[in-house]
């Protein structure tokens, strides 16, 4: 991994179009500004991790659990009204 030291208001370019600016540093928190074309997706890494965790939880679903749910659902007649 490339590691660069930066001060407040200094930036890093990734490719020609993406600029990462260090906006502020307070204690252990760093504020980062990102200038990038609209089509570049920018998300906190935690979101990927959360979705991955949720997918793994979802993979343990069973037919038995679905049978239990059948009884909990609003009655079909009601839903179709």
């Amino acid at each position, binding site marked *: 991994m490339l590691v660069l030291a930066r001060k407040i208001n200094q930036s890093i370019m990734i490719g020609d179009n993406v600029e990462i600016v260090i906006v502020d540093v307070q204690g252990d928190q760093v504020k980062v500004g990102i200038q990038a074309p609209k089509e570049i997706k920018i998300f906190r890494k935690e979101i990927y991790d959360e*979705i991955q965790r949720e997918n793994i939880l*979802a993979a343990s679903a069973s037919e038995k659990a679905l049978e239990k749910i059948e009884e909990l659902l609003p009655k079909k007649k009601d839903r179709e009204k």
Partner: protein
Amino acid sequence: MRIKTKPYGEVEINEANIIKIVDGLFGFPGLENYVFLESKTEGPFLWLQSLDEPGLAFVVIRPEEFKADYKLSVALEDIKSIGLESPDEAVSIALVVIPPDPKQMTANLQGPIVLNVQSKIARQMISLNPEYKIKHHILDEMKVLLEKTKEGMHKEEVKD
């Protein structure tokens, strides 16, 4: 073709119904081929069965089943990656988590599977709408939806 499935053992499927989830689901890379199976239980759920890994299957639901005003909001780059021009052309599918108390089951609207129905190409995307969370309580939201529908009908009756 006959395939092995997690919920129902060996079943016959139509090859034309196989969908490709590009890059696989988060946490399940490399597993791209899936098929939807009708659930044998009553309700709005489907199974999403992996063809590459017979032991891997998910319960899924269309978000519209518990959120009438659901509107997909994802990056245009993602939408174009499945061959579409607008999120309105896509079909969203939410993965369901069923905890030990099934009343608490949730659907994930933060990471929907987004499908191009014509080409059968899909991708798991990240929602740009912060109202769509990783856990939506399906039963609670269904009840709310049901009440709204009833109110709507009542209003129509009054109009008449």
